[in-house]
């Protein structure tokens, strides 16, 4: 007797609990996946085109508008690129405060994702509101941590959404010591809360999954790379940001307005788990101890460990912000002067969702000739599709449609995709006869 394998078509028209507009098409014929497409249909936003002709001094505020969740990543990456081109050496104060500013964004973005977007999946809840019914203390704690991240962003950016503090050469202003002291006290008080968060996150039962993939993240010899470093991969690659195009290639697929990225022709992972896989040895000792207690073996091949990776990075960011704000003093000037010159500016940092790469071709007056921005979600897009194929097979294609749909959504949310950041559009050349 021949077993009849089932055929199903699952369409998730709008993905919930992700940033931006996307959908998923899955087709299973005779027990095998014949179509799997993560469709990103959010309209293209043309940010790179809008940047053309803009003065370098406008760029930080302009790119902050790309994302309401991770504006600091865009600002700091652009500033780093231009400062490199213009031969600017940041003051030690500005260098340290850029990292603190960035820590605020990691704390805020990761806490939002853990508590409001990802965790409900693991408790059988449809939303954070349902999760709050069964885990109110944990959700309250998550919101407190998120608010503290927002405050750190506000400290340097004057507001946490689309902040305006960064300028090429440093910051527009320096926060007053009294306010910094107040935030230091809050950061210190948040440490035990973040430790409890790590323990809670590590205790959440997640599906067992084991996949081979390449992790890609910035690496720095002295610290857990956030706002600077060289691009590293789990196969041993270590390159400057300038060599990105020699190893990574973007291409367009008809079903998505976001570009797909490959590393040496293969999908790859960026984001918290990729960073933790590559850089866990650079975590502060206290964070490493807690990580060891969690029992998670690194490098992890289970993307469901992304949630605990975010919790670990929140704790790291709190420690870093506290360390760097110790003995805070207002500098003589929060910025150094800049003289523009023509050339190509390339910058790379670790946005909350992963590697963020910028390239600007600038003219001698400091205006943008062209810009290219490679955000983390577009880099993860091919990996998400690959993960879905592998993960669904290991989950079992004979599961009910609802179970398959939920599993797919859960897999996608591990990546915290920021679809709004990722949308690009195919360049079009029109020939007219």
């Amino acid at each position, binding site marked *: 007797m021949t077993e009849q394998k089932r055929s199903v078509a699952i369409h998730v028209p709008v993905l919930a609990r992700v940033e*931006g507009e996307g959908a998923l098409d899955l087709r299973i014929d005779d027990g095998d996946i014949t179509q799997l497409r993560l469709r990103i249909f959010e309209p293209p936003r043309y940010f790179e085109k809008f940047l053309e002709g803009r003065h370098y001094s406008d760029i930080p505020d302009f790119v902050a508008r790309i994302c309401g969740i991770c504006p600091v990543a865009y600002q700091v990456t652009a500033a780093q690129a231009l400062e490199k081109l213009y031969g600017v050496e940041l003051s030690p104060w500005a260098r340290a405060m850029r990292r603190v500013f960035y820590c605020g964004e990691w704390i805020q973005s990761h806490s939002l994702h853990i508590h*409001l*977007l990802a965790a*409900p999946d693991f408790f059988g809840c449809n939303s954070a*509101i349902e999760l*709050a019914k069964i885990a109110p203390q944990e959700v309250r704690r998550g919101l407190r941590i998120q608010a503290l991240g927002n405050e750190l962003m506000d400290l340097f950016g004057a507001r946490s959404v689309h902040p305006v503090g960064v300028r090429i050469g440093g910051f527009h202003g320096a926060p007053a010591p009294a306010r910094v002291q107040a935030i230091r006290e809050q950061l210190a008080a948040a440490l035990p809360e973040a430790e409890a968060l790590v323990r809670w996150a590590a205790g959440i039962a997640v599906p067992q999954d084991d996949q081979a993939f390449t992790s890609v993240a910035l690496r720095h010899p002295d610290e857990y790379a956030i706002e600077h470093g060289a691009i590293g991969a789990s196969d041993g690659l270590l390159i400057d940001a300038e060599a990105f195009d020699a190893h990574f290639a973007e291409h367009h697929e008809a079903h998505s307005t976001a570009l797909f990225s490959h590393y040496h022709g293969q999908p790859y992972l960026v984001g918290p788990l990729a960073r933790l896989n590559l850089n866990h040895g650079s975590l502060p000792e206290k964070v490493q101890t807690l990580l060891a207690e969690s029992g998670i073996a690194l490098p992890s091949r289970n993307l469901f460990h992304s949630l605990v990776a975010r919790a670990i990075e929140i704790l790291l960011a709190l420690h870093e912000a506290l360390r760097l704000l110790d003995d805070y003093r207002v500098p003589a000037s929060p910025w150094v002067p800049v003289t523009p010159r023509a050339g190509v500016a390339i910058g790379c940092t670790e946005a909350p969702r992963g590697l963020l790469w910028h390239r600007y071709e600038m003219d001698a007056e400091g205006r943008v000739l062209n810009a290219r921005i490679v955000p983390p979600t577009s880099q993860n897009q091919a990996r998400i599709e690959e993960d879905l194929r592998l993960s669904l097979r290991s989950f079992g294609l004979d599961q009910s449609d609802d179970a398959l749909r939920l599993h797919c959504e859960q897999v996608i949310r591990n990546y915290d995709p920021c679809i709004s950041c990722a949308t690009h559009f195919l360049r079009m050349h029109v020939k007219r006869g």
Partner: protein
Amino acid sequence: MSRVRILGIGSPAGDDQAGWLTVDALHAAGLEAVEIDKLDRPGASLIPLLAGVSRLILIDAMRGGGQAGDIRRFDQQDWPAYDQGLSSHGIGVLDALLLARELDALPPRIDLYGIEIGTACLSETATAPVRQAAGQLAGEIAASLALTLPSH
């Protein structure tokens, strides 16, 4: 001591300024005993703003099928049952208030107002019915505060 907080939600785009115009009018009236803020899509960040507040007055633009300029006050029982997932950019005012309710973080009194708007488009000024409604609602709120605030 009673602490009143007034939040106007909106954006600089045309009629979407309805909440901002209302709190601008209240601010101009010099209500010193209340905290007045203008917010643009606060998301979950709305929740910490509710801490220690005894009365929250929140004004937002709405599209509920009525005439532009209609003012509606929503009681908690009007808040619809929540049945959608949250997205990080889509945590609306009602989502945040519902989450706050689950966390016992709602102020004892909430006056939630919606001003019906036409099309939210990129325009510097709001349409006349919305401007008029914002002024009228500000007057009503000021009058209600005069009754409850000892300083008025």
